[in-house]
């Protein structure tokens, strides 16, 4: 069945539509591949195709891997945490339900950093995920399982979530495409929350076309999510081969310092490639982007400290019994949460404390406004802001686990966009040291169609070969 696994999702859906491929065979091929997962990318795989899957939808019965933190009725939804071990929700997340209705049935749940807190997938209570390009290395995170599954060919496509880079960074490190959409365009209902004002679901796919195809069926206002809204444009599949008239803005502050040489070299080559396709390259100032990481690591933990309060052992998930209520709370949370989650709960609790709120949370929110203004100003001059997605290629397992600050620096290029609520995509950008690098394009709110077009033109020109990572094929 290896030829089935070689198809992109769009190719598979087309083959189903023309009758050349039986969706049952398609599902079964991926079910077998994911059941044989040797990267720890999956935490749960379906026994059989769900009966309510509709292969007549545009998504053609192409199965979908879903990050663990999306609630899926009756199937484990553990958010990578021990505190939710074998938690099976009574309902399904809106976006998963929508995609199933459009013809993408649930294939399995993918591993992730606990509550999406991490950039290496080493913070999962269910063990680290291995990078299919090099099993001694991390796949990135927090959507590491989704990225590795797609890169390895264990899934045709996958859902992830991005809060500070959790889709784009693992996509870059695994040599696939990852989109962080405009905040609000995809319902968050049923996503186990990390940082509510930043979290956004998005597709991880083998190419830009699949990204657009999946995203097209994810968008839409949901009555169950007050912060969701209707995308003003219908999402269309991209076809551009040129970038004439397009201006790409490189942050004036990007000097290459702190970025691996190979990553920077690939980035600069792609800028030249873009020029050869007709694009203009310009430097744009993003003076507050440097503060993005600091603001992010106040806002996200602050919201997380509140979002994770519900895991108290009273109603669901793990409980450690004790003689009194306070001990039950503390023991449950002591045993249930991993060290990174505890660190962020502590950070966030502190940042919101009376007397510190203005100095931390209040100030971080003002930085956030400044960053959004920076982008507004930039988009007055350029169509997209472009950066390397991650300053490095995939690093070795354990290399940064003892140094949270070094780990946080992975998010340097990806954090400003969620702070501003704007969309950004990471596309494979050639190899450095035989490992994938990523090229990031960010655009104004609701510019996904234009992002897909530009990313598609670049993707064709770059001609990245992802087959080396596809161990399943």
């Amino acid at each position, binding site marked *: 069945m290896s030829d089935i696994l070689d198809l992109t999702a769009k190719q598979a859906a087309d083959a189903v539509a023309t009758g050349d491929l039986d969706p049952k065979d398609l599902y079964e091929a991926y079910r077998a591949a994911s059941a044989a997962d040797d990267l720890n990318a999956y935490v749960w795989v379906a026994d059989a195709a769900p009966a309510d899957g509709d292969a007549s939808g545009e998504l053609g019965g192409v199965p979908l891997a879903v990050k663990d933190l999306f609630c899926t009725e009756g199937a484990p939804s553990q958010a990578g945490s021990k505190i939710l071990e074998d938690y099976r929700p009574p309902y399904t997340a809106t976006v998963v339900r929508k995609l199933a209705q459009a013809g993408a049935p649930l294939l399995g749940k993918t591993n992730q950093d606990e509550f999406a807190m991490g950039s290496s997938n080493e913070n999962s209570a269910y063990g680290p995920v291995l990078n299919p390009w090099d099993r001694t290395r991390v796949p990135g995170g927090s959507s590491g399982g989704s990225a590795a599954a797609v890169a390895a060919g264990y899934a045709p496509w996958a859902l992830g979530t991005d809060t500070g880079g959790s889709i784009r960074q693992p996509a870059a490190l695994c040599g696939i495409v990852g989109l962080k959409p405009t905040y609000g365009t995809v319902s968050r*209902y*049923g996503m186990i929350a990390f940082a509510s004002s930043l979290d956004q679901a998005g597709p991880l796919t083998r190419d830009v076309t699949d990204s657009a195809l999946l995203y097209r069926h994810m968008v839409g206002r949901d009555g169950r999510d007050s912060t969701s809204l209707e995308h003003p444009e219908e999402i269309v599949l991209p076809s551009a081969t040129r970038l004439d008239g397009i201006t790409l803005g490189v942050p004036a502050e990007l000097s290459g310092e702190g970025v691996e040489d190979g990553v920077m070299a690939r980035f600069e080559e792609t800028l030249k490639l873009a020029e050869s396709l007709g694009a203009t390259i310009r430097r744009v100032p993003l003076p507050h982007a440097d503060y993005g990481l600091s603001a992010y690591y106040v806002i996200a933990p602050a919201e997380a400290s*509140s979002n994770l309060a519900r895991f108290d052992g009273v109603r669901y998930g793990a409980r450690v019994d004790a003689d009194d209520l306070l001990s039950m709370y503390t023991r449950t949370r002591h045993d249930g949460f991993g060290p990174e989650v505890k660190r962020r709960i502590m950070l966030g609790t502190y940042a919101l404390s*009376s007397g510190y709120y203005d100095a931390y949370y209040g100030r971080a929110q003002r930085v956030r406004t400044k960053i959004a203004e920076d982008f507004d100003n930039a988009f007055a001059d350029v169509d997209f802001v472009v950066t390397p997605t991650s300053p490095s290629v995939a690093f070795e397992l354990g290399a940064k686990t003892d140094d949270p600050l070094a780990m946080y620096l992975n998010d340097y290029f990806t954090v400003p966009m969620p702070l501003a609520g704007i969309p950004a995509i990471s596309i494979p950008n050639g190899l450095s040291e035989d490992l994938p690098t990523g090229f990031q394009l960010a655009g104004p709110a609701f510019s996904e169609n234009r992002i897909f077009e530009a990313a598609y033109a670049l993707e064709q020109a770059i001609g990245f070969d992802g087959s080396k990572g596809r161990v399943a094929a």
Partner: protein
Amino acid sequence: MSAVEYEPVIGLEIHVQLSTRTKMFCGCALSFGEPPNTRTCPVCLGLPGTLPVANAEAIHYGLMIGMALGCDLAPRSIFHRKNYFYPDLPKGYQISQYDEPLCRGGRLGDVRIHRVHLEEDAAKLVHVGASGRLHASDASIVDFNRGGTPLAEIVTEPDVRSAEQASEWLKLLRTTLRQLGVSDVNMEEGSLRCDANISVRPVGTKELGTKTELKNMNSFRFIERGIKAEVERQIGILRDGGQVVQETLHYDPTTGAITSLRSKEEAHDYRYFPEPDLTPVSITQAMLDRAREALPELPAAREARFKDELGLNGESARLLAWRAELGDYFESALSSNGVEAQPLANWVTNELVQRLGGDADPAESKVEPSALAKLVALVGERKVTQGAAKQVLDKLVAEGGDPQAIVEAEGLGAVGGADELAPVVAAALEANPDIAERLRGGDMKPIGVIVGHVMRETKGRADGGEVTRLVREQLGL
């Protein structure tokens, strides 16, 4: 050495359960004693991944309350998260409003309003075991039916100066809310709950003393008693040279005991921050118009109408307007023909209330409004005397029925007109010759003796004025 006199300074915080169809942030129907945990859904159980959606009807009710209390309505208000751990709080935070509430300022009667905001109610904890409190109970069970019920929290300025004023003002507030139709306002069932912030200070000083917060007073009587007890406790401490400690207190209505729930040091740091799962509440003109149109006549306006249009005196107008059930009964009775407003008002607020008891709703008594109106009319037409009418009312309260029929059956009709009454008056003068002599001499003081004699003879059915007239006539005065 003269003792320092202290005055209480009291502010009230009232939680009102709104009688919307569904909960504040989910689609669950509100619960009225259904089996535990049958009015729940993933959202109000705080299941992972769920999100709140604000109830538009609750915002509408909030605007109505704000208008009724004369508040400034915020064009934009936001919800905050109030973070603390407790088993009745499934998300680990309560969604409430903090520094940008729906309504600010305002006044009801003699008390200024500080703010009104919207929030969600907690679930209900049932503590199993001897203590009945969380501490030292054998087990605690959570019923999430109540969790997420919409609440309006009304906070007053510290304008209340006595326990009696607190209770009287709360009755006005309850009436206002009942008139609005936004809540069942039933204290025993918890749809109206009151906490009081209490401090005392030497009379004549402006500076506020250290306050305590008294919780859990679920009836007007308990509010009055609880506040009284706390004021006395604080004055006692100060008289003994001590200092009041800022703390949250629990009033036990069965024992009257006041116990500390937590001190200032133990107070929660709620770590308020704007609720990122909800967008700001933006009030449109259409929402304001709709709320304004929904406003019924409120007590203050009704009081003015009773005075201006019906000519009631101030005391009657206020009482009938502030106690809506009395006002409703009064207006229903007034629609009967031939009855005058002020005497009817007096009969409702004095005789009827006295007979039915404090807080009773006359609509639930056996006295039909039209029956009372007829009785008052009979008095007005001098067909029944005041005294006889009170006997008729006793009968109406006990058994109901038609006042005219009771008058006839019991022979309580006024002994009216000279024909019937003149012989009785003559007999009375004859029986009291020395009194008659003094009256003849122009000393009218002892006329009461003659009137009393006639009343005794007629079993109170004679008209006092008519008796006096006949006495003068017969004595040629």
